[in-house]
């Protein structure tokens, strides 16, 4: 065979080798560390960062807004309005994490002067002791570790309609507060109608802040479910009938609120014939009472099992209540596990069940197909049904 001639053909290998060596010998001996693409990735997702509380103010009768800045005053990571932040709370020997929708706007995280990020947290009745801890104990000057810019609950211009109808229940207003501020600032190009369900008129989270933002691109409609004869506005729940009144034309519905509202709205939006691609639910949240879910076995509720926790070559044995997720058992025992959404979606707490049985919260099963085959679980959505052996990442 012949390409260009025998001698040239047979000397190809040595020719290309010479070329390679020549390229190296003429190269610079100065180390180049520039990785600007990696730098942008790290600016958006630096992992956990230090945050200091610089302000605490009431957001309603039963909720507070906390403002955080970086101790060095630098800009916070960019994020999308609607995303959440995970904060670590050292409580006793444990490190407990909680996700909170960010209630400040993305542009505020990138200000030149005192960039900040805010969360708004409602005192809750019994189940969320961290919420009470924030309301009662956290004060300016306190420092935290947090990771922000998480979650998929944000406006995607290529997918969503230009008109977004937000269906908010109670403190579920927070992601929409972020969107509203960004719309008002002119850096989020959409029309936003917020249908905001609250129980009583004297306890509406972020009411004054939101009122100031109203414009022809931003409508806020308060809907009261409580019994108040003098209330001039909309009443009842966020029903199909009420939604129809405000959702003209092609809209995308964003829904954030308590779990009971999710169930109700699935039905209402279905009734209205809204196509699936126009409906975005925020994650479900940790199950309030796992025993109430379809498929949860009888007679487990008051049991406690032994959980063997494997990290590398190290093992611990800890108790695990049937009604609490494996993440909660780990946190109670002071064993670190990173969590994000605590709704089975993000997979931060992905772990492997080596033996034993667990119940997976059906609303929160965000696992990959192959993961299911090999016993992987998202520990925040897995509840022990026997003694278990679980391998978790080393933190």
């Amino acid at each position: 065979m012949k390409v260009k001639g025998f001698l040239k053909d047979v000397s190809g290998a040595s020719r290309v080798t010479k070329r390679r060596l020549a390229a190296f010998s003429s190269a610079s001996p100065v180390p180049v560390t520039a990785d600007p693409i990696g730098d942008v990735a790290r600016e958006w997702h630096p992992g956990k960062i230090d945050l200091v509380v610089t302000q605490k103010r009431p957001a309603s009768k039963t909720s507070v807004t906390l403002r955080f800045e970086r101790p060095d005053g630098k800009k916070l990571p960019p994020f999308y309005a609607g995303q959440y932040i995970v904060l670590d709370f050292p409580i006793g020997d444990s490190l407990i994490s909680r996700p909170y929708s960010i209630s400040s706007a993305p542009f505020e995280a990138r200000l030149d002067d005192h960039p900040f990020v805010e969360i708004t947290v409602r005192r809750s009745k019994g189940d969320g002791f961290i919420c009470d801890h924030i309301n009662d104990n956290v004060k300016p000057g306190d420092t935290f570790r947090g990771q922000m810019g998480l979650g998929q609950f944000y406006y995607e211009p290529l997918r969503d309609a230009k008109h977004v109808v937000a269906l908010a229940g109670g403190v579920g207003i927070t992601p929409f507060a972020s969107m509203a501020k960004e719309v008002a600032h002119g850096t989020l190009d959409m029309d936003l109608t917020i249908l905001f369900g609250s129980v009583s008129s004297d306890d509406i989270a972020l009411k004054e802040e939101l009122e100031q933002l109203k414009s022809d691109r931003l409508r806020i409609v308060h809907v009261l479910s409580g019994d108040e004869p003098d209330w001039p506005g909309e009443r009842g729940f966020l029903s199909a009938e009420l939604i129809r009144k405000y959702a003209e034309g092609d809209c995308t519905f964003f829904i954030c609120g308590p779990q009971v509202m999710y169930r109700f709205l699935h039905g209402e939006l279905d009734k209205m014939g809204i196509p699936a691609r126009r409906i975005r639910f925020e994650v479900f949240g940790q199950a309030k009472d796992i025993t109430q879910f379809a498929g949860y076995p009888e007679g487990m509720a008051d049991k406690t099992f032994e959980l063997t926790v494997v990290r590398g070559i190290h093992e611990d044995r800890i108790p695990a209540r049937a009604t609490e997720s494996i993440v909660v058992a780990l946190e109670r025992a002071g064993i670190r596990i990173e969590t994000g959404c605590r709704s089975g979606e993000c997979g931060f707490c992905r772990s492997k069940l080596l033996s034993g049985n667990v119940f997976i919260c059906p609303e929160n099963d965000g696992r990959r197909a192959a993961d299911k085959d090999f016993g992987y679980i998202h520990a925040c959505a897995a509840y022990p049904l026997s003694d278990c052996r679980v391998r978790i990442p080393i933190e």
Partner: protein
Amino acid sequence: MKFYKDHYDVIVIGGGLSGLSSALMLADKGKDVLVLERHNLPGGLATSFVRGGVEIEATLHEMMSIGDPGKRLKIGQFLEDMGVNVDWLDVPEAYHLSVPGIEKTMHPGFERFAKEADEVCPGTYRKVLDLLNLCHTVYDSVNELSIHPMSKPAMLMKHEAFVKTAGYSAQEVIDTFGLPQKAVDLLAPYWIYVGAPLSILPFTIWAVLMADYVGYGSKVPKKLSHEMSLKMQERAEEMGVQVELKQPVEKILVKDGKAYGVRTKRGDEIHADYVISAAYPNKVYTSMIEPADAVPEKAIKMVNGRKIGLTAFTVFLLLDKSAEELGITDYNVFLGETMDTDKIFENYKGTGPYNYLTTICLNHANPTCTPEGTCIISITALPRIEGWQQVSADEIDRVKHETSKSMVDAMSRYYGVDLLAHALEVVIETPMTVAHYTGMWNGCIYGYLHSMDDHIVARLQTAEEEHFIDHLEFAGAHQISGNGMGPAVTNGRKAAKNVLDTMAKEAN
């Protein structure tokens, strides 16, 4: 608390396909191996993500070198030998090419492919077949020589075609066949899977690519590439390998010119006789070796003398109708404004709009990969890093949306369907996304650019002298066989082989 043993035979940095292949091969030989992966999933790029309740393939287009049961090709055989049993599905076609003047679906099998080329360019059947057969001869030689090296005269006797084409680019060899440009265009699309235009791409690489993909077709794992990655991890663990996720490595510890361990970001110092790094040599030599002065100047000159390959930009669209309902008929469409690979390569310097798109509709190989009545497409360009290096954290969102919009619009026009009007989910994967999840240097997925200045034959010839730190090997797209999931496995095996050879040598 002690999470690690006092000592391992080998520490592998990176639990991607390459690192896991190293680990499998070393464990198979009874070595005590620790794999440290920065992400919370194995596989590196061979992974998936869940959006809107649907698991979506993150990167894999088509896996080469698998082969059918009973007649496995190189990668398929290795995985089987290691006890990694992946549920492979056939990709039904080679590709559909849509460029000015050509609209044609091509299928694997040399004769069928040549016949289809002949339908577009009558009278080219014989020449196309001859060219493909030449590719196969070179492919066979590469496979044999990678296992049994031989002397130059012997090589010339037994592997004449390989030797005689080694000094030429794909373009130079193709030119000798005197094919009309249209026929060359029909043969060119796969260039993107190695990421160098035909004018600088070594014929050797192009030959392997064509022989493998066109000769045997390709496959995908039923449960996406995460199935392959996870099965490799699970099997490695069964064989005694310790795999730790979420453990980025910051330093490779070196003493007296020899690697002896690593330090993780968490602060664990772990010792081993050998270290295999899937992190780019650029990153290793400029910031990971401790002490830094253990890096010879030659190593820096080497990484500076090489050109970085391509990165990736993909738009994923989960659509609310089936592929049939939407008229999406092909598995793989190459849509180009041109088939001139130099022009495309030039266009890929920027951040878009891109003039050459690769679109996969996985449902055509894997019908149940999305819920009934839906389908998934991914639209990809594989740009060079230069353009994206200029984009700041505050600009990336705008730029990625502009680029995505242009790509989706182009495919909407091609299919005659407003894709966005059917989008259940839109996910945009940028070079920054790659950097974020894999930590790869500048988001690069293709290692070093294949070129006549960085030729695979030359890489093999100079491998010995590019070994700058004892007991430190590299695995990944940046190694001899280059980019792609198949070559990643080969590179991982090679790193393991180097370790085993050195162990044997030092034991004597």
